[in-house]
């Protein structure tokens, strides 16, 4: 049997290497980014619809009476579906009469809470809307809304806000689905 001999110098080098390697592992472990609670990755359709929901809702509540209804509609319609634009356009005169009288100047911040429903062509998102000040006839600056985004030829677009009975039905459906 062949005898392996270590010189004193080599022994010190080996020990130093082991020591440095161990210290390195410890340091990397301490400073490396900690794994966070895993979040489901959004699909491209979800990302696009989420963006459409946020932009459309912000455009809808970005009201500056001095700029006027037409400019507001033009901006909103550039972010909404054609039919969603026609829907709002139909009632815009009466809505804006109120805003003009009250000299409304409001901005909105929209945060997505969750996706509530999704098909290949429709997605409903629950969002939290914060207004810079209350709208005429309201004293609230924060409210949840359920927004429908539709897939169009030019991508996902804001379509409309869901109505109260539609929201109630969605919530009930979610509660039933979450029951064990």
């Amino acid at each position, binding site marked *: 049997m062949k005898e392996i001999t270590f010189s004193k110098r080599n022994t010190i080098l080996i020990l130093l290497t082991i020591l440095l390697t161990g210290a390195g592992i410890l340091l990397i472990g301490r400073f490396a980014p900690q794994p966070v609670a895993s979040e489901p990755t959004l699909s491209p359709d979800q990302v696009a619809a989420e963006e459409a929901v946020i932009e459309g809702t912000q455009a809808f509540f970005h009201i500056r009476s001095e700029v006027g209804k037409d400019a507001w509609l033009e901006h909103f319609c550039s972010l909404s579906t054609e039919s969603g634009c026609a829907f709002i356009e139909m009632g815009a005169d009466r809505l804006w009469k109120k805003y003009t009288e009250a000299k409304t100047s409001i901005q909105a911040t929209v945060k997505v809470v969750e996706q509530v429903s999704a098909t290949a062509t429709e997605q409903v998102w629950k969002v939290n*809307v914060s207004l810079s000040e209350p709208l005429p006839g309201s004293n609230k600056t924060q409210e949840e809304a359920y927004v429908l985004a539709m897939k169009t030829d030019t991508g996902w677009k804001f379509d409309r806000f869901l109505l109260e009975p539609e929201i109630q*039905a969605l919530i009930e459906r979610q509660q039933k689905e979450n029951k064990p």
Partner: protein
Amino acid sequence: MKRIPQLFLFLAILFSAFPLSPVQAQDTSPWSEVFDENGNLRSDVIDLGVTTETPSWMSVDLPFGQSLQLDANYHRFQTADGNVVLAPSASTLFFMAMNPQESGLADSAGMMSNGYGSMITFLGLVAGDSLDWNRLQSERPQYKDPSQFWNAVLSGQENAWTWFSGWGFITKLLSMSFDDVAMRSAYLMYLNGARNCALIPGGCSGIVIPGDPEDPPPPVCPGPQVTIQQPTLTIKKLAPANPLVVGQDPEKRGVDVQAMVTIPPVIFVWHEPIYEEEEFCRAANAGETPNCKTSNSSLVNDGVEDSELVFKECLRHVEYLPDAVASLQATATLDGASKAWITGQLGQTHYGASVHKESFALVPGFTTWSGSCSGGTCTAVANALKVPFADPGNFNLKLRLTTTGTQFRGVTITQPRNLSADGDLQVYVTLPALVP
């Protein structure tokens, strides 16, 4: 997905054969007053045009307590017997179905040929794919097919809003025209609607007032006929050809805008019964002295001479009734794209560019209107001269007016009409450019 429309087509055929309408079949269908045997509108049906109103049941709630008041549109017709038939727009019909009591849908005599069967077909076509049928079947097993559910909705027993799993169809309804396939049989009949016009969708706008049922019609003469002809409305720029913003025009000329209205007469045809007085010999009453023989077989005078009116013919009269302009308004408003261009693109290159005056009340305001009637045709004109448009871009011109309605011998024949027309005009600006 494509099976659902096929299913509804099948159901439509089925319902046509076996109506499930709450309206029972009549011996003589009132629809025969509306369409001829070829399915065309009868010539004696009066086209009342499209009426728009803003009912509370078409109000859509938005976040923060806001609401969107949608317009209800109905193309309406009046039959010779005073029934009113209306063809609602798709969105109107859908909201009527969702609010059958408030909208007056429940008061109608149903739809053409099969009562509410066509309504169910319509709901199936526009919203059938969006119905959460699996959930509906598990929670409402009593419905064996979607038509039973829609029937319950139309009867006010179910709230359809809670059973959708697709929502995009609501806004798409707005893009459906009156000619859409889903709308082809979407005519609602309101029996005696002309007399009760205040209670029917669209109200009394343009309704031809039927004769008083207390007055018995002449024995053999046909009833009156009313023909409403469509008016011509225009609002347009007269001069100059290419108007400059007034600030750049050395002459400060401004723009001439003209609004013109021509309303042809309402043609009212009525028939006058012509009677002739004829003498005859009637039996003498007690105390009367006989002075004639009641028959050839009478040997002595046994009757008294009397006279009576005997119907001879119907004299046809054609009246050209003027429906004059009662009020007229005209406005010009800079459109949103032009405002955005002024404050955006123009503002970036020309410091301080802003909108000076975005809207003008032309009539009344810049001028007043004048009108007259001749030979039953009524005209109105308003020339707003030298309107100082100070902003470049496209101005939307709007003309709105109401008429007086028509009367004949103190009796209202047609109700006042609300008419409108739009136009536009372009105002130019010259922009200096640096030439190298």
